[in-house]
């Protein structure tokens, strides 16, 4: 069983996000980076399947500048066997078609049975790369998997639907699945894993030429109109104004 896991390095939840003067992206030098959360779950799921199977290979693939080697090493420390690093600068890169094309090029000769990726990245949050990549490579696809079961040349996934509903879908292999956070308990890299990761292979490759089909015009802080609207009046009046706010401003009714 050969499984590829796409991981992305993204700013951490508490990282500062200073915007560049030209508003085209954030100042990467001031950002604290981590592995994308749902990718971590995807990696754990892949490692788990490999362990249950008894053999197989988990290959980590990631696209980005040299700094992403940190999360690649982290994935190797957790148990991935080798890695592919598509090295390129990515400020303001938001187009999942372009990203998926790079991956399709890099992975085309590997013949993976499964490609796992997080459902979306915590930076741009397009949520498409895994599905697009699967489609490009002629694989079956499914998104927002909350559980997986592999066997008999197929994979069954429990898709998350709206409002507490779920659905099991069975896919023929090869398949590309995007993974929802929370489906397992990601492991921490053991000390041995951390040391061993230094010796595992990271193949660095050049990106192919792909045009972007959507671009970031500008990035900005939302108008923090946290002018607290104080609602006043008698109890009945306040209740009425609240309902009004719920319906017309917040739009939850």
């Amino acid at each position, binding site marked *: 069983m050969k499984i590829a896991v796409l991981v992305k390095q993204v700013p*951490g*939840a*508490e*990282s*500062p996000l200073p915007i560049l003067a030209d508003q085209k992206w954030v100042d990467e030098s001031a950002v*604290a980076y*981590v592995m994308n959360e749902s990718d971590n779950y995807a990696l754990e799921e892949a490692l788990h399947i490999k362990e249950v199977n008894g053999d197989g290979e988990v290959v980590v693939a990631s696209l980005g500048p040299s700094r992403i080697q940190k999360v690649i090493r982290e994935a190797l420390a*957790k148990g991935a066997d080798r890695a592919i690093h598509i090295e390129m600068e990515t400020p303001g890169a938001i187009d999942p078609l372009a990203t998926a094309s790079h991956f399709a090029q890099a992975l085309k000769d590997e013949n993976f049975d499964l490609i796992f990726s997080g459902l979306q990245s915590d930076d741009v949050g397009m949520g498409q790369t895994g599905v697009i990549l699967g489609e490009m490579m002629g694989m079956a696809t499914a998104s927002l998997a909350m559980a997986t079961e592999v066997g008999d040349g197929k994979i069954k996934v429990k898709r998350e639907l709206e409002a507490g509903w779920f659905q099991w879908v069975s896919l023929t292999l090869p398949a590309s699945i995007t993974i929802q956070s929370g489906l397992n*308990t*990601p*492991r*921490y*890299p*053991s*000390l*041995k*894993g*951390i*040391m*061993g990761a230094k010796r595992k292979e990271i193949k660095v490759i050049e990106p192919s030429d792909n045009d972007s089909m959507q671009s970031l015009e500008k990035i900005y802080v939302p108008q923090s109109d946290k002018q607290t609207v104080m609602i006043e009046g008698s109890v009945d009046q306040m209740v009425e104004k609240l309902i009004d706010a719920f319906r017309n401003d917040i739009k939850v009714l």
Partner: protein
Amino acid sequence: MEGAFSFVEKLVLTIGIFVVLSSFIFELWRRLRIVFKGRDSLPFDRFGTRIWRVIKESFFHEKIIGGRFWPGLMHGLVFWGFIVFGLVTLDHFAIGYDHPLMSDSTHKNYSYIVIPFSILVLIGITTLTYRRFITRPKALGEISLTSGLVAVFITVLMVTYLLGEMKLSPLVWRVNWWLHTITIMAFIVLIPRSKHLHLVLAPINIFFKPFEQESHTPVDINLEGSEDELDAMLSDLTRMTKNQALDIFSCVECGRCLDVCPASRGGGILDPKNHFILDLRQPLLDRGDVDVLSNINVEAGWECTTCLACTEVCPVGNQVEKSDEIRRLEVLVEGKVPQEYQKLFMNLQESGNTEGATSSPLAERLPKYTPDKEYLLWLGCFARYEMDPNFTKSVENFTKILDVAGISYGILENEHCSGDPANRLGDKLTYTMLREHNMEQLSDVKKVVTHCPHCALNLEKEYAKYAEVNYKVEHHSQVIGQLINEGRIVVRKGNKGKVTYHDPCNLSRMLDEVDAPRTAIQATSENFFELEESGRNTLCCGAGGGLWWKKETTGRTHLVRAEQVVESDADTVVTGCNFCYGMMNQGLKPLTPETRSEIQVKDIADMVAENLVENAKDSSVS
């Protein structure tokens, strides 16, 4: 004392003694052999102090009676009776060879001492047996067969002794003598095979008890090392020290550790007696070696607040707590870390602090350290990143006190977390990174003061396990206490309400400081009273051992102490640790009944700063 013993009897006696002693020595040696396979060496430093400690704790039963008065005293009766009986027993066997050690008159005179003691022993053993088999306190656990046997043996021994001192016909006397002898032999056979080995090992164990707590072995990680080095280091992690192995065989199963454990009292599964000690006994014997630390219950291990109450209360000198041992295995070897702690470790690695924060308004306001300043003021993550925003004021109150006393201080710009959470949670790799960074930052510092006992403990004692430490560390209560004692600051008794003090476990037990905070508090309050379980016997607030960052709040470990504070009817509770401060703030509010006014939570610095008499006498610059 009648009649000569026959040759056959002496032969049987000799064989009996030989067999019994061999059995005793064999079983004892079997265990001691395992102990000697342990890591490190047994300590002999401060010899005199160690001897004195054995006398205090063993002979005078300091912790045995201190922890549980009546059972402790009853045990004392049995114990002192045993000592008095030493000579009697030797004499008894000598008689079997028709060679009594004592003359008739000595024997008679001595019996005036021994007979009353034997009555006391009977009283002691009867009450203890009643307690163990009828009352059955939870801490004693399941019914113990060996305890039953020992109760029978001791009773028989006392009764046969008393009978032996009476006028008996020769036959009855002989039978009585043999009954006493066989009982002693059975006892000797039983001792090394049961918890009654504590008879032999407890004084020895108390002698070897480390002075520094906690005494967990350092985990030296060399990232540049070879794979073999790493493998050797990792497999070493499963091995106990000699002291730890000796502990396991000395355990008397009294359950005092279970009684005091805050995790257990908060409804958790942790049972220090079993999880940290007894679960390891059979594995030690089965393996014949000490590499059994992976047998510690993992779930229980994560519940521990590392408060060392268990170690403090143990009457046979055990270092009970072993959460460090199991956590380091889970983290370093298995990579099995609860999710909330993974985030914590990442934050520490990425940002050098527990919160993953990048700036600190408090740090910006405070003066920076330069070598001409007297003290380095170590903030710690809790204060620096405002983990309880109210505590920021307490830090500033302390700096105000320093200003008034004319003491110069500054903070480290590049202060990283002391590493306490990583250290206590088993992530020794992250700990190494933080420790090495901080040691470099502290290279030209001579004196450090901090209000966080966790930081103080690490900077002073834990770091010293890895490399030489060139600075001295004081807790802020110690500085304040000294200033008050020396009259360098003047404080008035401004607080009129009922004030009590919650001793932080890291400060009272691990840094051995209980007086300085009281000096400070009593100088500011008219109406100070002690909580139950105060001083070195304090009950942990529940935040230790990394539990401040624990997500699932099942169990009430964090509320037990708060409940005690509420019940004490205090108006103000003072703490000496930022975590205790935070826990009190969180815990008191929901537990205080609506009818009562809110209990104030203050740090020692708050109490003193609020009651400081600021003279114009000393207008020095800080």
